[in-house]
C-alpha cells in the first residue's frame, strides 16, 4: 500500500489525463498521473532517487516522478477540475492533475529536477516556485522571466534544489483569477540527510479561500476579501480529514497561506514550536513556543509538537473562518422575541422558522433545506452533539495504539475515567455581588441573563 507502485496502481483507475497528454509526445514526457479522490492518500515512499521521510497531504496526494539520467522528472497538467469541498458540495475549480490544490511535489535537497508543465486551461499560465532558490529564468513570472505558457503548450522548468524546507507553487500569470480558482500546490524539499529534522508524522496543507455564491458552483474570481468558504486544501470541515497520530509521536504540520488574509492557526492540547518559516528551518534556540501561530499571506509555517492522547481541535482562530457560507449582512436577532411576529410571517411564508433569537448555535442543530450545492454554515457532529464548526477546522486525533504509517480515522476519543467535564447537580446559592454600574440614557437596554434590571 505504501509504495509507489501500489499507489500508481490504485490511482490507475483515474489516470484519464495520461492518454490526452500523450499527444504532446509520450517519448519525452513522463506520464501525467491524475488523482480525483478527495481523500487523503498514503505517503509516497520513495523507491528511486535519494531516500527521505515522505509527508502526508491533508485530503491530497504526492505527485509521482520518474528518474531520467539522474534527473527527477515530474509532469504537471494545469486543467479545470471539480473538487468536492465537503460532502454535499462540489465546486468548479482549476487545478493540476485532476485536483485542486495540485499534488504535493516532494524532492530532496541537491536533487536536479525537471518539471513539465502542460497547460490545458482556457488561458495562458506559468508556474512560480514560491520560496525556492533557482535561476531567475525558472521563476515562472510571465512577461518578466518567461513567456506565458499558452493553452495546449508544455513548458519545462529545470533546476537544482539548494535548500530544504516548506515551499509552494502557484501561477504567476493572471494569478488573481487562477489562485481564486484554486491553482496552487505544496512543494516540499526534504533534507539530504533523512535524519535531519526527522519526525514521525509530517502533515502538509495549503490555506485557501473561495467565494462561491450559495446555490452556484464556480468561485467568484473578482472577490477581494469577502470570501465565504475558508478551506484547507480546498476542503471545509466536516470534509477535512483528521490528523491522526500515536501518543508520543513527533508531529509536524506544514502550512502555506495562499488566501488574501492571515490565519492564526490554533492547536488545542499540546504546545507546539514553530520550526520552519518561509526561508527554511529555525535553529532550536530561536524557536517560539506557541499554541497559535499566525500564518500571514504568502507565507509558510512548520510547527512541531509531541502528540498527547485525545481529540484536539485544530483550527483558524478567526471565528468567521470556521464557518461555511453565511450571510454577511444578516442582522443580529439575539434577544428579540419573534414568536407572535413569526405566526404572522408564517401566514405569508408557511415554512418559515424562527432563528437567531438565542444566537446562531441553532444552525448547527436544525436540519433545514438549503440552496443546492451549499454547505450549512456550521456543521459536523461530535460524540457529544453538534460541533458547530465548518471551514478551517479539523481534529488532531492522538491514540496510544495507532500503528506507524496508519492514518485511518480512529473514531472518537474514549476519555479515561474522571477526565471528562461533568454536570454539577448541587444547589446554586446566589453569589454576593458588588452593585453594577447603572445605565444612563445613552446606554441601550441590554437584556442580561438574569435579574439586574433594578438600575433601569
Amino acid at each position, binding site marked *: 500500500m505504501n509504495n509507489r507502485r501500489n499507489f500508481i496502481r490504485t490511482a490507475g483507475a483515474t489516470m484519464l489525463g495520461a492518454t490526452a497528454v500523450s499527444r504532446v509526445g509520450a517519448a519525452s514526457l513522463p506520464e501525467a498521473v491524475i488523482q480525483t479522490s478527495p481523500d487523503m492518500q498514503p505517503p509516497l515512499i520513495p523507491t528511486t532517487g535519494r531516500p527521505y521521510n515522505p509527508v502526508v497531504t491533508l485530503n491530497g496526494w504526492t505527485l509521482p516522478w520518474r528518474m531520467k539520467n539522474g534527473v527527477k522528472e515530474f509532469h504537471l497538467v494545469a486543467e479545470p477540475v471539480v473538487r468536492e469541498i465537503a460532502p454535499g458540495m462540489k465546486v468548479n475549480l482549476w487545478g493540476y492533475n485532476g485536483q485542486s490544490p495540485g499534488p504535493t511535489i516532494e524532492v530532496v535537497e541537491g536533487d536536479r529536477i525537471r518539471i513539465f508543465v502542460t497547460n490545458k486551461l482556457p488561458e495562458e499560465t506559468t508556474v512560480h516556485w514560491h520560496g525556492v532558490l533557482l535561476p531567475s529564468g525558472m521563476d515562472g513570472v510571465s512577461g518578466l522571466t518567461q513567456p506565458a505558457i499558452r493553452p495546449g503548450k508544455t513548458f519545462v522548468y529545470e533546476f537544482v534544489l539548494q535548500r530544504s524546507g516548506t515551499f509552494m507553487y502557484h501561477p504567476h500569470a493572471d494569478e488573481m483569477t487562477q489562485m481564486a480558482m484554486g491553482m496552487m500546490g505544496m512543494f516540499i524539499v526534504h533534507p539530504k540527510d533523512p535524519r535531519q529534522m526527522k519526525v514521525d508524522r509530517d502533515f502538509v496543507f495549503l490555506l485557501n479561500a473561495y467565494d462561491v455564491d450559495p446555490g452556484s458552483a464556480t468561485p467568484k474570481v473578482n472577490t477581494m476579501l469577502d470570501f465565504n468558504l475558508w478551506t484547507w486544501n480546498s476542503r471545509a470541515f466536516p470534509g477535512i480529514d483528521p490528523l491522526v497520530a500515536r501518543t508520543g509521536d513527533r508531529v509536524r504540520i506544514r502550512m502555506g497561506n495562499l488566501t488574501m488574509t492571515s490565519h492564526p492557526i490554533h492547536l488545542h492540547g499540546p504546545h507546539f514550536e514553530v520550526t520552519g518559516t518561509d526561508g527554511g528551518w529555525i535553529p532550536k534556540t530561536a524557536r517560539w513556543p506557541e499554541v497559535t501561530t499566525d500564518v500571514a499571506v504568502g507565507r509558510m509555517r512548520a510547527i512541531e509538537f509531541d502528540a498527547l492522547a485525545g481529540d484536539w481541535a485544530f483550527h483558524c482562530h478567526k471565528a468567521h473562518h470556521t464557518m461555511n457560507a453565511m450571510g454577511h449582512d*444578516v442582522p443580529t436577532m439575539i434577544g*428579540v422575541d419573534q414568536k407572535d411576529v413569526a405566526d404572522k410571517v408564517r401566514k*405569508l411564508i408557511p415554512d418559515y422558522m424562527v432563528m437567531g433569537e438565542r444566537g446562531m448555535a441553532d444552525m448547527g442543530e436544525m436540519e433545514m433545506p438549503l*440552496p443546492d450545492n451549499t454547505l450549512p454554515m456550521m456543521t459536523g457532529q461530535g460524540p457529544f452533539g453538534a460541533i458547530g464548526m465548518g471551514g478551517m477546522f479539523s481534529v488532531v486525533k492522538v491514540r496510544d495504539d495507532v500503528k506507524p504509517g496508519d492514518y485511518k480515522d480512529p473514531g472518537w476519543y474514549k476519555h479515561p475515567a474522571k477526565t471528562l467535564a461533568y454536570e454539577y447537580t448541587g444547589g446554586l446559592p446566589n453569589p454576593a455581588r458588588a452593585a453594577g454600574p447603572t445605565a444612563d440614557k445613552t446606554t441601550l437596554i*441590554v437584556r442580561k441573563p438574569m435579574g439586574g434590571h433594578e438600575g433601569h
Partner: protein
Amino acid sequence: MMKTRIMATRAEMRAPHSMRPLKRLAAAGAALFLAGCATVSPDGGFGTVQQLTKERTGQTATWQRPDAQADSAKARVDELLQQPLTADSAVELAFLNNKGLQASFSELGIAESDLVRAGRLRNPSFTFGRLSGNGAVEIDRSILFDVLGLLTMPLAKQVEQARFEQAQLQAAFEAVGVAADTRRAYFSAVAAQELVKYFGQVKEAAQASSELARRMAHTGNFSKLTQMREQAFYADATAQLARAQHQAVAERERLTRLLGLGSDQLNFKLPERLPELPKSAVEPKDAEQTAMDKRLDVLMAKRSADAVAKSLGLTKATRVVNVLNFGYANRSQTGEARSNGYLIELELPLFDFGVARLLRAEATYMQAVNRTAQVAINAQSEVRESYSAYRTAFDLAQHYRDEVVPLRKRISEENLLRYNGMLISVFELLADSREQVSSITGYVEALRDFWVTDTNLQTALTGRSPDASATERPSAKAALAAGGAH
C-alpha cells in the same frame, strides 16, 4: 292653414313620377324588419330588439312595461341576487333593472306610435265661424278633411317607418352598451375586491417587518435609521391598501349603478376571483367584415343614409357605391404561396342626381354617405385596435400566470433556503414575500384587463364603439334625429 297644405301638396305633385318607386323601396325596407306596421304590434317592435341584443350579448333584454311583467322581473332580480354574480348574470340583471336602459326602450313606443299615427288619416274637423261688422253677420260653416295628410301619408309612413326601425336599432345599441359597461364594471369590481386581499397581505408582511424592526431597535440590534426604513415600508403599504379598498368600493358602486340596484339590494355577492383565463385566445375570422354586417352603429348610419335618400325623394337609384371596397381575397401568384387578403364591403345606393340636380339635396345626401363611411372606418379601426388590446392582454395574463408568478414563487422558495442557511435575514424574506404578492397583483390586473378587452372586442365586433360608455349619448342618435327630420 288650408292654403299652405295645398301648396305643399302642389309641391309634391310636381314630381308625381317619384311616388311609385318610393313606395317600392319603402315596402322592401319594411320587409327587412317588420311585416305590417299600420297598427300597434303586440310586442311594440321589441322582439327585433331582443333578437339583435341576444345575438350580441347572449342575454335577453326585457322591456318592463307597467303590467304583470314587472312582477316576474322583480322575482328574477331577487333570484339573481341570491347567488354570487357572474358576468352573464350581471348583464341579465342590468337588462332587467337598468332604469336608463328602460327609458331608452320607451323611445321605441314613442316611435311606434308616431309610425301608427302616420298611417292614419287625421279625423275630419268641423269649423264654425261667425263674423259680424258693419251691421252684417256672416256665418261660415265648413267640414275640413286632411287632404294634405292623405296625399303625404305614404311619404310620412316611410319616414316614420325608418324612424321606427332606427329606434329599434337604437334600443339594441343602448342595450349592448349597457351590457358592455356592466361586464367591464363587473370584472373591475371583482378584480378590485381581489386586489384588496393581496394588498392586505403586502401590508401584513410590511407590518411584520416593522414590528420586528421595532423590537430590534428596542433591544439595541437596529439603529433608528434601519428601523425607520422598515417602518416606512409599512406606512407605504398601509396607504396602498387604503387606496385599494376605496378602489374596490368605487368599482362596486359603478356596478351597482349599472345594475340599477337600490340601497336595499347592496349586499349582492361577487365571486372571490376572476374567471380563469381561457385556454387559448380567439382568432376572429373576417373580423372587419363582421363589424360591417353586425355593428349597430354601422347599421344605423346606413339606415340613416337610406332614409335621407328616401326623404329627398331621390328615386333614381342607378347604381350601388361600395364606399369601402378595398382589398381582395385569396390572391394566388405563380411560384408563391396563396396569400389570404380580405374583402370588406359596405354598400350604399348612389343616386343619380341628374334631373333634380339640387345642390342641397346632393349635399345632404353626400353628408349622410360620408358620415356612414366615417362610422364604418371607425368601426374597422376599432376592431383592429380592440383585437390588439385583447391579444396583448391575453398574452400578458398568460405570461404572468405561467412565467412571472411561478418564477417569483421559485425565487421565494430559493430565498427561504437562503434564510434557512442564515445567508439572508427575515427582513429580506419579508421584502421578497411582498414582491411575490405584487407579482400576483400583476396577474390579477392582467386577467382583469383581459376580460375587459374581451368585452371590448365583442362589443367592437358586433355592437358599437367600445370606447364610448352607454351612459354617454353617442353621435349615432344625432344622426338618426338628422335623418328623421326630413
